[in-house]
C-alpha cells in the first residue's frame, strides 16, 4: 500500500491565522447555542466545538478549485471553506441571504461557488458524490481534489464502504477525512466499532491512510497537505483519520445523559484545540483578547445581518426545484 508522508512545518504567521479562524468558528458556534436557547433558531443544530482544528486544518490545505462535502455538523467546515459568517448565520435563521437562501438550514449549508458541495444530513450521504466529483476531475484531467468530511459513526454505513472501494479502484483524486470524535450521537465506540484503529477500514480497500491528532492543527494541516498532494498527483485517494473530541452534546440542547460523568470536563481541559494552539503560540492575554474581540464582533454582526435578513415568501418554496 502506498505511503503518504507529511512534510514541512507551518509558519507561525499561518498558525496565527489558523488561530483566528478557529476562534471565530468557536465563537460562532457558541452564539448558535445561545441563540438556540433564546428560541430564535429553528431546526436541528449540531455544533463542532472541539473539532475546529479539523475543519480549519483541512480546509486551509485546499487549493482553489478543490471541493468539499460536509455533514450534519457543518458550520465549521463551511466557515473554513470561506463562506462568510453572515451567510451562514442568515441560513440558520432561514433567510434569503443565507448561504442556501433559506432552503437548506444548518444541515444543508451549500456554497457551490466556494467549492462547498453541501452539508448532508444523511450520515455517509455525501461520500459517493465526493467520489463522483473526483471522477469528473480525473476524466477532465483537472488538478483538483474532492474532500469528504464524515464521522466515526459514518464508517459503519454501507455508503462508506462502497465509496471508498470505488474511489480506490478508480484511483480518483479524493481525500476522505474521518473526524473520529469517539461518539456517534449517544453511541460510544465500543457499541459501534469492533476495531480500535479505524485506518484498518481503509486497508480493506488498499487505500493509504494517515492517522493524526486532530486537536493539533499543525499536524492536521501538514497531513492534509500531503494527502491532497498525493491525490492531486494522480496517486489515488487517501484516508485521513483525525482523532478529535466533541466538547459538547450531539445536538444543541442535548442533555448528554449517556456521557460518563466527568468525561466532558476532562476533555474540555485537556483536548481543546484552541487552548492547545494558544499555548503553542504563546499568545499574550492581550493578543488573545484582540483576536477574541474580532471574532465576537464578526459573530455579533452576523446575528444582526441574519436578523435583518429577508424572510422568504411562503410561495418561494415552489422555486428552485427543477433546473
Amino acid at each position: 500500500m502506498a505511503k503518504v508522508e507529511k512534510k514541512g512545518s507551518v509558519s507561525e504567521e499561518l498558525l496565527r491565522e489558523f488561530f483566528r479562524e478557529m476562534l471565530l468558528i468557536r465563537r460562532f458556534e457558541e452564539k448558535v447555542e445561545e441563540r438556540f436557547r433564546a428560541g430564535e433558531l429553528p431546526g436541528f443544530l449540531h455544533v463542532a466545538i472541539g473539532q475546529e482544528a479539523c475543519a480549519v486544518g483541512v480546509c486551509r490545505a485546499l487549493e482553489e478549485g478543490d471541493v468539499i462535502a460536509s455533514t450534519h455538523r457543518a458550520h465549521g467546515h463551511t466557515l473554513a471553506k470561506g463562506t462568510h459568517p453572515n451567510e451562514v448565520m442568515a441560513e440558520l435563521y432561514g433567510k434569503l441571504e443565507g448561504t442556501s437562501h433559506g432552503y437548506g438550514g444548518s444541515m444543508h449549508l451549500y456554497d457551490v461557488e466556494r467549492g462547498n458541495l453541501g452539508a448532508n444530513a444523511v450520515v455517509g450521504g455525501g461520500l459517493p458524490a465526493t467520489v463522483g466529483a473526483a471522477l469528473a476531475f480525473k476524466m477532465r484531467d483537472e488538478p483538483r481534489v474532492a474532500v469528504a468530511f464524515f464521522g466515526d459513526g459514518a464508517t459503519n454505513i454501507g455508503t462508506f464502504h462502497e465509496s471508498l472501494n470505488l474511489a480506490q479502484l478508480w484511483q480518483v483524486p479524493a481525500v476522505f477525512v474521518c473526524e473520529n470524535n469517539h461518539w456517534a450521537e449517544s453511541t460510544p465506540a465500543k457499541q459501534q466499532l469492533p476495531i480500535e484503529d479505524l485506518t484498518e477500514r481503509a486497508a480493506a480497500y488498499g487505500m493509504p491512510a494517515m492517522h493524526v491528532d486532530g486537536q493539533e492543527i499543525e499536524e492536521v494541516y501538514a497531513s492534509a497537505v500531503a494527502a491532497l498532494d498525493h491525490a492531486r498527483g494522480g496517486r489515488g485517494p487517501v484516508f485521513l483519520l483525525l482523532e478529535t473530541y466533541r466538547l459538547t452534546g450531539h445536538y444543541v440542547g442535548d442533555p448528554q445523559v449517556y456521557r460518563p460523568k466527568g468525561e466532558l470536563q476532562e476533555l474540555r481541559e485537556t483536548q481543546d484545540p484552541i487552548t492547545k494552539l494558544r499555548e503553542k503560540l504563546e499568545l499574550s492575554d492581550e493578543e488573545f483578547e484582540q483576536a477574541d474581540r474580532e471574532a465576537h464582533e464578526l459573530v455579533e454582526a452576523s446575528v444582526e445581518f441574519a436578523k435583518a435578513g429577508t424572510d422568504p415568501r411562503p410561495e418561494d418554496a415552489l422555486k428552485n426545484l427543477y433546473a
Partner: protein
Amino acid sequence: MGGGDMPELSYREAVRDALSQAMRRDGDVFIMGEDIAEMGGSMGVTQGMLDEFGPERVRNTPISEMALVGTAIGAAIQGMRPVAEVMYEDFLTLAAEQIVNQAAKHRYMSGGQLKVPLTIRTQGGAGWSPGAQHAQQLEAWFVHIPGLKVLFPSTPTDVRGLLWSAIYDDNPVVFFEHRTLYGLKEDVPDELEPIPIGKARVHRDGEDVTVIATGRLVHESLAAAGQAEEDGVSVEVVDPRTLQPLDEETIVDSVKKTNRAVVAHEAVTRMGFGAEVAAVIQHQAFDWLDAPVERVGAKFVPLPFAPVMEEFVVPHQAEVYEAIMRTVGRNGD
C-alpha cells in the same frame, strides 16, 4: 411507565407502553435501533427501557440501516419478534432493499415456509424545520409493496393498541409515527387493548362530506370539521389507521352516506396515499359521488428549511377546510 393507573398518556408514552408491556410479557420481543438505549431514542420514545430490560433487549446499533433492518428480519424468521427503529423515515430509503425485497417477499418466495414477524417503527414529518432529509412522509411507498402491512396511527390509544397488534402480527409491519404527535395526550383505557389491523376509525360522524385523513392531518381535519360545522356543513372524519390492509368498506360506506370525500395527508399529494383512496372511492362509490374527491397533501417540493416556507408546503386545517368547502360548493353550481 406502564402498570398502575394511567388515565392520560402521551403518544410517546403510549408507544413506550406497548413496547414495554410486550417485552415484559414475552422474551421474544426486543427492540433495536440507533441511539435507543442510553439516550432513549432521538425522540425519547424508549427512555428508561434500557434500565428495565438491559442492553441485550434494548440494542443500540451502529449507523447501518440496512443491517439493522436485515438483522431484525433474520431474527424474526427464527421466531423472535423484533421491533427495529429507523430513526427517521427518510432513512427507510437506506433499508428499502431489505424491506421490499427481503422482509416482504421471503414468505411468498418460499411458498409459505416461513414467516417474518417483524415491526419496523419509524417517524417523521414536518413542523420542526428539520430540512429536506429529515421530514418527508414515505408511507405510500410501502403500501405499494405486497407482503407488507403499513400502519400510521394518530392518537395515543391507537398507537398503543396498533403497535401491540403489529408486534404480534406474523408479518412485517412498517409502523409510521408522526413527530409532532409525540406530545399529544389522551385518556386511554387502563388495560392495553389491541386494535385489529385493517379497521378504520370514525373519529366524527357527519352527513355532508367524508374526510379520510392520516397522521397529523387527522387532527387538522377534525379542526377543519369543527370549522365547517359553523358554516352548517356536517363532516365525517375517518382515519384508516391501517393503510395496508385498507378498510375500504368503512371508507366507501361513509362516502355513500355523505356523497363527498376529501383525502388528507402530509405527504406530497402526487402519488401519495390519497391517490389510492381517491381511486378506490371514485370506483366503488361512483354513483354516489356529488363532487370529485378532493386531495389535500404537501405541495410538490421537498421540505424547505425556513419555517415560513415549510408551513406553506405542508397542509394544515385551512387546506382541509377549503377542500371540504370545494366539495360542498359544487352543489351550488
